[in-house]
């Protein structure tokens, strides 16, 4: 009786090992920015379809994790949604697309437009009530990303400059969590990658410019940042094939369909 039970457990373990073992191995690991992750997944799917036997494993973790794992070799390709810092140099960078950053508010918020200075003043805490910028009389709930996030890095660079964020600020850990927070709070404002934009929230015009691929490519909409693929050295073999695919007409078409701005 006891041995029968043990036998069943051993059998299950062996069966799982067999099933896992006969899966094809991943021959390419991509890791990093959660903003780049969705587009990398779609590109990988297409790439796998065209190259039978190739399996690509796409992981998140954030831009800094992408840099780290590329340096250490745990990832073949790293993803970053911000320019690399001075202490992160030495990697081979390929920009595959540009992404806009949208300032989002609740759909019930009457505000449709802000200047970059107003956005900065909201995030530094100089403007604390919506009525100060023509909205309803209600305190603004400011939603920020966590330190180290690529989206936050780009936002700091473009909007904040040397100014500090206000103390009383909500911090959420992903584009999705910021979107969820803003969708649920009529007085909230946050910023997310335009790829993650959904109709549950509203992206504001900045300096009178609608955020869309045309305005970003033309440089009229100022808040954008590069999506970068990182490799340890100059790409070769399968890694080069994948990066070339991302830059190919088809890869760029996929980027465009996902709301990104093409670079080729």
């Amino acid at each position, binding site marked *: 009786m006891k041995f029968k039970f043990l036998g069943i457990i051993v059998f299950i373990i062996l069966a799982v090992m067999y099933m896992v073992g006969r899966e094809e191995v991943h021959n390419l690991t991509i890791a990093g920015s959660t903003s780049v992750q969705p587009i990398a997944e779609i590109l990988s799917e297409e790439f796998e379809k065209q190259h039978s036997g190739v399996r690509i494993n796409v992981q998140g*973790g954030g831009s800094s994790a992408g840099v*780290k794992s590329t340096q250490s070799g745990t990832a073949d390709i790293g993803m970053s949604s911000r320019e690399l810092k001075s202490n992160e140099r030495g990697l081979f960078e390929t920009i595959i697309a540009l992404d806009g950053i949208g300032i989002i508010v609740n759909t019930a918020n009457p505000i449709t437009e802000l200047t970059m200075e107003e956005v900065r003043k909201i995030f530094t805490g100089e403007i604390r009530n919506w009525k100060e910028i023509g909205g309803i009389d209600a305190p603004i709930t400011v939603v920020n990303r966590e*330190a180290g996030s690529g989206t936050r890095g780009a936002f700091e660079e473009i909007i904040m400059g040397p100014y500090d964020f206000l103390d*009383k*600020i*909500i*911090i959420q850990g992903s584009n999705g969590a910021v979107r969820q927070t803003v969708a*649920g709070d009529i*007085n909230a404002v946050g910023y997310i990658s335009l790829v993650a934009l959904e109709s549950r929230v509203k992206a504001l015009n900045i300096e009178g410019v609608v955020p869309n691929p045309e305005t970003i490519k033309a440089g009229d909409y100022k808040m954008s940042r590069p999506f970068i693929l990182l490799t340890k050295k100059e790409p070769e073999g399968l890694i080069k094939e994948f990066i070339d695919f991302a830059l190919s007409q088809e890869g760029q078409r996929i980027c465009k369909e996902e709301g990104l701005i093409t670079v080729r």
Partner: protein
Amino acid sequence: MRGDSEREILKVSAFLSTIVVFLIAGFVLWQGLPILRREGLFSFILGREWVPSKGRFGVYPMIIGSIFVTFGALLFGVPLGVACAIFLAEVAPEWMVRLFKPTIQLLAGIPSVVYGFFGLTAVVPMIRMYLGGTGFSALAGSIILAIMILPTIINISEDAMRAVPKEYKEGSLALGATEWETTIKVVLPAARSGIAASIILGMGRAIGETMAVLMVTGNTPHLPQVERNISPFLKVFWLFLEPVRTLTGNVVLEMSYATGDHQSALFATGIVLFIMIIILNVLANMAFNRR
């Protein structure tokens, strides 16, 4: 002979599972000590600013945040849990116990991220609507944690009350005490070390919980502040409506981005959490072994 080798296998198993604890503790210390040595333990613990990009590492706001949500969770969870345990052990008829107990145990099996999502979509908006503020607050964390520690408190307290010898109760009833008086004055005191243990374990779970808290507390790395001119006692209530970041939340939120000093500071945050939990356990043991 056979007995010997089996004993050896058991010994090795025990040794291995113990050594894992020391390995993990050692690793966290090894990773976190550099920053503690440079910044000094006290300026790290009492530092009020957490700005990793500028090399300022102070976890005081996070310590306060952890204490806030844990204390709040106990405030809601202990009375509710102990009352529920009394009901199950002393008052409820058999069929109710058979219905309630598995349901409460089910509560312990729900993954914490589900609690967090519930908090984010139900508790946070409710606080925002009825109490004001953003809703992301120590209070939201406390409410979610209170629900999460209920099974621990209820199960252990109930077991402790059921373990009270029948003679105690019979003696009390024979002396003319009512059922209620017997419960409050005889059963509860006799089971107090078990109830205390349940509270300590619940507190341990609350202070170590991460995902659910992360989703509802707002995570701002600053001390909760209220700009109101009211007495300090009333102020505490308003402070609960402010966003806070806990020690665990600090580690998880920034872990994937951290390098160098920042990473070391996150491990040091882990050390602080570790020390807090050890202090809690020692205090609890001291208080309840003395009787």
